[in-house]
């Protein structure tokens, strides 16, 4: 089976005046469909850059980036936006719910962007809210929710349009350990049920332990996965 994410010899650098700062060096990496991968590394090691490249938010300067069959290097900005819209679900550390929309509307947003509207969209969003335990808070404004509840809405929003790949940037980083555990369980269960791949950037051992595989990054180099294979 082809991996959902396949990176080959990916390089990323930033030109800062006369200096060139390399953040990723010849990264080879893959994620299979339905697989849960934790990406760990110190601050500044290149985790976020890698996540940006996989999500099409940023482009690689060299190498090949294939996600869900799309060659991201070949896509322009508009095509990358459409790719993100259909193929990626995001969960952020700081939840990033849209404050001007209700809980239900936040979950409806990705569906609407994918052209799914009306009763079908509403039913699907409500069902997912029920899955994350927030069916009774559909009309509530996000700022009325606790951190854990907000992150549950974010999980529902990330999954509602059935993206093949879910990207989570420190999904429990802003939560206490109990709430973090609940969210982590929710993420892993829901992605497992639906067969979505999950790539989580994390500092947390617990989060890393919940993954099928852990990929370590250091100073822009992928150094190992949990099988101990040197990359």
């Amino acid at each position, binding site marked *: 089976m082809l991996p959902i994410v396949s990176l080959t010899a990916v390089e990323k650098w930033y030109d800062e005046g006369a200096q060139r700062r390399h953040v990723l060096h010849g990264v080879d990496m893959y994620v299979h469909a339905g697989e849960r991968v934790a990406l760990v590394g110190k601050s500044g090691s290149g985790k976020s850059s890698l996540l940006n490249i996989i999500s099409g938010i940023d482009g690689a300067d060299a190498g090949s980036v294939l996600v869900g069959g799309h060659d991201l290097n070949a896509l322009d900005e*508009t095509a990358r936006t459409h790719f993100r819209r259909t193929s990626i679900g995001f969960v952020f550390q700081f939840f990033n719910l*849209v*404050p001007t929309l209700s809980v239900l*509307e936040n979950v*409806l*947003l990705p569906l*609407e962007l994918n052209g799914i509207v009306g009763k079908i969209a509403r039913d699907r969003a409500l069902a997912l809210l029920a899955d994350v335990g927030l069916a009774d808070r559909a009309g509530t404004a996000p700022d009325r929710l606790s951190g854990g509840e907000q992150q549950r809405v974010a999980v529902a929003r990330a999954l509602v349009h059935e993206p093949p790949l879910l990207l989570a940037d420190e999904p429990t980083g802003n939560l206490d350990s109990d709430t973090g555990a609940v969210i982590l369980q929710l993420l892993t269960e829901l992605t497992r049920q639906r067969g979505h791949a999950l790539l989580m950037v994390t500092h947390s051992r617990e989060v890393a332990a919940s993954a099928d595989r852990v990929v370590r990054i250091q100073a822009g180099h992928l150094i190992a996965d949990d099988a101990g294979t040197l990359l």
Partner: protein
Amino acid sequence: MIPVVWKSTLRWPLRRPWQAMLAIIGVAMGVAVVIAIDIANESARRAFLTSTQSITGKATQQLIGGPPGIPEEFFVRLRTQAGVRTSAPLIEGYAVTTQRPTRTLTILGIDPFSEVMFRPEMSAAGTPLTNGMASLLTMRDSVILGAKTAAALGVTPGDTLAVRIAGRPSQMHVVAVLTPDKTASAALLDDVVLTDIASAQEMLQRPGFIDHIDLLLATDAERARVQAFLPAGIRMTTPTQRAQSTTEMTASFEINLNALSLLAMVVGMFLIYNTMTFSVVQRRQLLGTLRCLGVSQREVAGLMLVEGSVIGIIGTLVGIGLGIGLAQLLLGLVARTINDIYFVVTVTQIQVSWVPILKGQVLGLVASFVALAIPTIEAARTPPRTVLRRSSYEEQMMRIVPILALLGLTGMVVGGVVMWQGPSIWFSYAGLLFLTIGAAMVTPWTTVVLMQALRPIAVRFFGLIAGMAVRDVITSLSRTGVAIAALMIAVAVTIAVGLMVASFRVTVVDWLTTTIRADVFVSAPSMNANRLDTPLPSGVAERIALLPGVARVRRYRSTMLPTERTPVLQIALEVTPADYETFLWAEGDPAVIWPAFARDAIIISEPLALKRNLHVGDTFVLQTTTGDRRVPIAGIFYDYGTELGVVMLPLERYASWYADDAVTSLGIFVRPGVDPEQFVTAVRDVFPDMALMVRSNASLRATSVEVLDRTFAITNVLQLLATIVAFVGILAALTAMQLERMREFGMLRALGLDPRQLWQLILTETSLMGAVAGLVAVPVGTAMALALIYVINRISFGWTLQFALQPHIYVQAGITAIVAAVLAGIYPAWRIARVSPAVALREE
């Protein structure tokens, strides 16, 4: 159903209603000022045209004569010898009612028998004679009024109306009230007094003369026949041409008012820009999230445009309502200036047509979109990684600031070049706009430089809180920069207009000192403050010359001279070598000018020379009673009395060329030791029954300066409105900025800052912003003043002004900037200091 993605941004203003409200106020005020000026100008113009129409009626042609008018015997000859039966004589003048409130009435002296074919609306209830017109012929000083005017004055047939004509008290007997059957016609009778030619001549003291003859000529052959019959000094024109050349007189005045009103719009645009930029900055996280979720750049831009458009549309609609109200308030000021400087117009009610409304709508929306352009692009370009990588937007701002400054400087240079080299006044204004916006773009960089220099000093002498305040101005540059720039522009405009008015005043006062040398001036009262064209009763000059204490009497005759373009003021005067130094020359050598003037030449004013590109040695056509004469120009003198232009020629030559020996004013030089004020009283005592205006030198100068100040009243009102718009802007920006930092302040409170220290922090910060705005406004305002004085005034009005540097204007502007900024900081400081640290920390 509204798409969810739209709801995500459209609900944003509802979360910050005061911010949206202030943006709406910005648009509304900008639109209101523009519409108000337009409506006021147009109402005055339409009132004038309506009154012209009531005078011209259905006439196809008009015959006009020289300054005294057309001898009435010519009308008789025209009908009897030339057989032109479709003709009607007319004499017109003005009267002011003595009741309160006073009203200016247009006196129309007509021939009731000839009238009906020209002005049928004045005979709606039957033939003119059955309509009371017969009484005009039989009763002295009898008049007919329109029903509306009669009602406004509270008179009915049989009543007597007390008026003053050229300052003389007079009485009119109302013999009939006309109620025309068409509404359109009713307007033509507004403030019009109809009377018989003979009564009008008597009321206006112009025996034997009429102003013009209306003609109804259907064919070219008829026109040619009349043309052939005309003696020298009587010309044929069309009523439209005449009305047009008169209304064109106010073109520069209207352009300048429009430009000033547009300034309020520009400041309003800054407000929209400010609000929307701020809104984008506040929403970067949200926009980044939307971009991550797959909302495209184009969709983000669309969302911002829709939101901005809603604000623009609401603001524009509110602005239209406000503008109509404001127009009524400004109408008085506009009409007064037109009456003071240009021509007599009676207008009390605004007339709202769809043109200014449409213009206001388009302008409001276009301004909103222009102001939205940059924030929209900024919003659309919000990188999705904003959410993932919390990169500092402010760091990015710091990188942009020098580029922005460079662009701004380039804009200022381009503005300067366009202004100096541009072919028309609109280019000059465009140049000024470039200069202003360029300066605004340099402001953030200047702020950074100043704050960086100030910080160590602030910390050393005022402690860490002062240092924090200084640093905060830089670290929030994306917000503070725009707010400071908006305030800077408002303050710079205050400085520029202040310096321009001061320079004008200084120049005019100097000019008055040089030119007004006689000790006492005598003239007949005139409807127009700047023009003394009512002849003095005969014999006045001679009797005054015989009074004890008189050293010399200088006689003047002022008339309006028709030219191929707008009319100009023609002053015929007596000049002796003693008077030579009362002229300041813009072009020409006095040693050559005076002999030529005495021989056959004229001298003209600087505005006339500049507007018609005339120089010494060129010729100018005078349409005299004895035929057109092409006369050489000997010199060009500075003149600030009228922008219409002045032609001067010796009184004797005028009398022979125009067959008119009337005198309109006298300059009297008294012998040493005679008190001018006592002499004024002495003259009044000699002519107790005559309505003479007798003024001392000091009083005339004071009156002239008063008229000058009056003409700037509307400028000051518009400038004040622009400042109010800017103040709303700074208030919006600072309030939003400070409230957004609630969490940061909560943290400081949690760390131990007491409410007093918070007040100190916030007010120091806002006053620093005011100080920077004031400081930058000094060179910018001065540059704008120089542009107004040396470019715009010169092109618009043809005046060369001396630049008067007035320190108090700078001090005032600096205080305004700081006070505005401090006032804008009070509400957020009050609110933040009251909130408990726990609540503040919980704020999003």
